[in-house]
């Protein structure tokens, strides 16, 4: 039996910053919410063809398709990995912000 088709988006990392990008249909966005979702195999094939073009390969890093799922009327990445990428941050407060939240003294939770 053929594998069931799952909707996908085209993503990559920005060449200069390495930040995650999503293809909107007209260009790249740093926001997952702007991503153009391919809901049919044909649309997915078009996105894949785009990802494979030399121009795309040169202008971004690692363009590829990732699966998305619909939840409460909105699309979200199917995997935790892609969800973390889409959130553009680790899942916890980090760096100076986290340190100042903890305050001086190593014991505060």
């Amino acid at each position, binding site marked *: 039996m053929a594998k069931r088709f799952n909707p996908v988006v085209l993503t990559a990392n920005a060449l200069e910053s390495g930040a995650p990008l999503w293809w909107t249909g007209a260009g790249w966005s740093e926001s997952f919410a702007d991503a153009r979702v391919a809901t049919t195999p044909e649309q997915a094939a078009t996105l894949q063809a785009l990802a494979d073009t030399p121009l795309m390969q040169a202008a971004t890093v690692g363009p590829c398709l990732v699966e998305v799922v619909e939840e409460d009327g909105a699309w979200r990445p199917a995997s935790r990995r892609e969800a973390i990428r889409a959130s553009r941050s680790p899942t916890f407060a980090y760096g100076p912000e986290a*340190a100042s939240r903890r305050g*001086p003294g*190593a014991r505060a939770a």
Partner: protein
Amino acid sequence: MYRYDEFDAAFVAQRAAQFREQVRRRLSGALTEDEFRPLRLMNGVYLQLHAYMLRVAIPYGTLDAEQMRMLAHVAEKYDRGYGHFTTRQNIQFNWPQLKDIPDILDDLAGVRMHAIQTSGNCIRNVTSDPLAGVAADEIEDPRPTAELIRQWSSLHPEFTFLGRKFKIAVTGAENDRAAVAVHDVGLRIVRGPDGEIGYRVLVGGGLGRTPMIAKTLREFLPRAHLLPYLEATLRVYNLLGRRDNKYKARIKILVHEMGIDAFRAAVEDEFARLDPEASAPDPAEVARIAAYFAPPAYPELPDACPALERARRAHPEFDAWVRRNVHPHKVPGHAAATISLKPIGGAPGDATAEQMRLMADVAERHSMGELRITHEQNVVLPHLRKDELFQVWRMLASQGLDAPNRGLVTDIIACPGLDYCALATARSIPVAQAISRRFADPALQERIGPLAIKISGCINACGHHHVGHIGILGLDKAGVESYQITLGGDPTDDAALGERTGPGFAFDQVPDVVETLVRRYLELRQPGETFLQTYRRLGMTPFKEALYAAA
């Protein structure tokens, strides 16, 4: 500390200039990612989930105050105000822009630092004992040996394209604090039959998807033969090691497949062909290197320190810190101290620019300007006066660097995991944070005693989970994070790999799992026993029952 000579300075500057040009060509589109990737990896630049990551070498974990300040500067100017100290005694910056990396490398070169050989299939940063040169149990300072190997292995023409990465660790103490048995080559400085100093050479240790404890390659190697012998070992590996499968390309697989005896015979054969006198380093150069590591001019002090004892009595929190984080020192009246980068609920190994600057200030004022990074992702101040420990502690406390937990349940090692790492299968830092919060009570931590929890976010095992007393490995089971638990691992003298308890656990269950294991241990332990000792005495069964009986 070792200072660059003109040759070192020239090659670091040259490499930075080359990389600037390569980055320019990549940004202009002249190089594709496939062409550029090996070039960036040769300079410690990875691409992670959210951004590029730059890994900077800290040779054998030693750095001075000026270098620590430079790391703070890099964190602040080019990154998001912090860095992550790793289990390889290096530092990683998580958010640099590709266009800025040439400038970062120039800035680092200004303080004799670089990112060369922090990635790729070459001999990586040599690691060592963070208490090198000061530990009371030391036979000889391992740093001159580590520095000699660093110089020999840097841009070594024969060994820059090995089958896979190659990690060497050196310890000069009776107690192994450098985990030499889990390295491709581990060197222990030992005394030979006639009392002369040389090396016991271990080979084929490593973690990753096929963890192995190293085997003894040579019981005693005279000091002068070190480089020729390493050359023979690397050559045998380079020629006979597999290149068809990345997962079978480490030297441990070759040693395992050949058998240690056949591997040893091949190395000894090759070694016999070499002229050790011709390929041994020039004794004058060895002496020059050693001179950099001559002990600093310590003041003469009595060993007993009434001021310290008074401060300990007056400040129980300081007393707890001294008990846990302060180490004996060779020189009377002195001590070394661990700065824990494991505050309750923190990300293990992370330090902000402000904290780095404070550590540099403390080092300058109190530790002869020197700092060490440990493979437990902490920092050591190696040269403290006992009568200044209280001031040191007060300074550290002002920036949350006073956690009195070295070696305790909250001194957790964790790799970046799925929050940063492109290879990860599960998160590891949030798991560490949850466990840390669960065991936040300092009295409870002390009651539990020494307990090393180590967490990796995938089978590459950067978090050294195989050698955790409790090891935690995050996997992906059909899209859901699942954590496999191992018990009884140990990277030290009686090195052992942990044994798996059974089926894995969900993300949210892990703190409960650890608590269940700790409770069981507290019920079963005999007076004075550590977790590891109890586990070794009783084996897996009681722990397994505690974990799975209820299910």
